[in-house]
């Protein structure tokens, strides 16, 4: 077996050194009733060729996004990742290293985490960021938990424009922690009175920008109201690339930003692994979950980095930790850091403009299809259109015609018949004019 270096001769020698007659003796503590003499009922070992054959067969049954006109978003976005990113993250010293608990031999990891934390703070307009969480949805739930700790209250008001998966994760976490949620129903294209729902028990208000339907808003006034009432404003960002084009949450008065970083550096990967971004104000840093890389000096006075403020974390604080998180999203954070470094200020701004331009073109072209209406007043690279019929069957028919046309909102809210004719459409820099034309043509045909 190619991954097992021990030979039978080695095993014999080692058993002799140990003084055991057989390997079974080393398993003597296993109760007899639980010992299995035979193999489990699974296929036996396979060489690379055979494994490749089987997995390639499974992969071939999927329609890859790059092979068709592709307009699917809903919290995960298809962007072009420069070739250098994947090469660099596959360097063994990055790929196969561990959490940097021994900083003297982990300066590579610690330095890139420090760069990552800086990039996240800059993008979001906040003061400090952590070294990543699992994804945007769990980052959102952690933000609510943190707001509870900071304010010593335990109710969160959730906007109806929050991604439904994020809302669902918040609901699960809150239910088991014994906290309250006041989640508003989705009202795409309409308004909601979040300020009116803040009371003396409210720890935070959670909004998303752009929201789930793509609408962009200014939350500066809401931030002020929250602060007047002793609550925090949490802003969620599911398309981090939008921060290259629109006012960041930090400049609107956000206290915590919980975001999904997948768009930068990470492929769609059928939903994971992604990378949760988490940023806040300096004054709240000791209540922030997750790992933190901090700058210091070594015994020779040279600048270096270490994991710091570790007493917030589970390995020290145990049941009193800010979160139970241990493993985070390190390699995805590295991919983010490298991609964003390659983009730089110029590239990020231009890439964001390309995304918006693609979405504007798509929105205009689709709105020209008979019966189709654009819902949004504003959007970045994703918007909602209202079809003259339920959107789910339309999306299936378009898929049969080789167009991945977006996500029917009913997939998230099956019980809301009033949302059934809404379609979420994303258009990134990977979308061409030809893609848009094929989408529009197919849609026209299907709706006829």
């Amino acid at each position, binding site marked *: 077996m190619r991954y097992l270096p021990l030979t039978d001769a080695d095993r014999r020698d080692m058993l002799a050194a140990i003084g055991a007659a057989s390997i079974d003796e080393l398993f003597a503590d296993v109760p007899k009733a639980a010992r299995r003499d035979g193999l489990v009922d699974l296929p036996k070992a396979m060489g690379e060729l055979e494994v490749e054959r089987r997995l390639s067969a499974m992969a071939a049954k999927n329609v890859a996004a790059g092979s068709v006109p592709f307009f699917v978003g809903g919290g995960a976005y298809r962007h072009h990742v420069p070739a250098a990113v994947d090469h660099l993250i596959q360097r063994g010293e990055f790929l196969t290293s561990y959490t940097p608990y021994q900083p003297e031999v982990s300066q590579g990891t610690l330095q890139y985490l420090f760069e990552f934390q800086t990039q996240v703070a800059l993008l979001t307009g906040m003061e400090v960021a952590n070294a990543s969480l699992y994804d945007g949805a769990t980052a959102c739930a952690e933000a609510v938990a943190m707001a509870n700790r900071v304010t010593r209250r335990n109710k969160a008001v959730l906007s109806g424009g929050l991604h439904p998966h994020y809302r669902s994760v918040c609901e699960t976490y809150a239910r088991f922690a014994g906290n309250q949620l006041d989640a508003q129903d989705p009202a795409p294209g309409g308004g909601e009175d979040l300020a009116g729902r803040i009371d003396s028990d409210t720890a935070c208000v959670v909004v998303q920008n752009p929201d789930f339907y793509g609408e962009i808003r200014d939350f500066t006034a809401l931030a002020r109201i929250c602060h007047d009432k002793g609550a925090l404003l949490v802003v969620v960002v599911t398309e981090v690339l939008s921060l290259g084009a629109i006012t960041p949450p930090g400049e609107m008065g956000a206290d915590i930003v919980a975001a999904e970083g997948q768009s930068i550096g990470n492929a769609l990967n059928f939903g994971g692994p992604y990378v949760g971004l988490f940023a806040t104000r300096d004054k709240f840093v*000791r209540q922030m979950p997750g790992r933190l890389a901090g700058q210091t000096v070594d015994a020779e006075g040279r600048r270096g980095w270490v994991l*710091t403020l*570790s*007493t917030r974390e589970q390995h*020290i*604080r145990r049941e*009193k930790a800010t979160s139970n998180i241990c493993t985070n999203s390190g390699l995805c954070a590295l991919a983010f850091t490298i991609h964003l470094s390659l983009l730089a200020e110029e590239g990020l701004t231009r890439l964001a403009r390309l995304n918006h331009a693609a979405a504007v073109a798509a929105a205009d072209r689709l709105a020209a299809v008979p019966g189709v209406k654009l819902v949004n007043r504003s959007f970045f690279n994703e918007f909602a259109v209202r079809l003259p019929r339920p959107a789910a069957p339309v999306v299936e028919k378009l898929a049969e015609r080789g167009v991945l046309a977006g996500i029917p909102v009913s997939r998230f809210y099956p019980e809301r018949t009033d949302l059934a004719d809404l379609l979420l459409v994303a258009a990134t820099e990977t979308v061409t004019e030809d893609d848009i034309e094929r989408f529009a043509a197919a849609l026209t045909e299907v709706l006829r």
Partner: protein
Amino acid sequence: MATLRFTKDHEWVRQEGDTATVGITDYAQEQMGDVVYVELPEVGRRVEQGKEAAVVESAKAASEVYAPVSGEIVAVNDVLGGDPAQVNADAMGGGWFMKIRLADPKQLDGLMDQAAYDAFVAEQH
């Protein structure tokens, strides 16, 4: 004269009239190593004898500090915010944590005096 008493969790408490000053002992700061942060209670909070009142942190550990007596927090040592190293430098004096208005001064009688505490510490080794 101020009465100085000690707990088994290595807190000291010095009574001055109807209030008492509380800190951690020199032995405790030595065991802790370099103190990096102290989480102090809010002024006005009521604390109960034996229950957690503060947390003292080094880079690698966090220890609860329990109230040696019950009462109301009337002051906390603001110096520790900017200079937690005071706890190491002067645990019994300038590194004090909080002042408590005593709910029941008799509670001090149940605590160790200097001699008893010194003997207790000697046993720890």
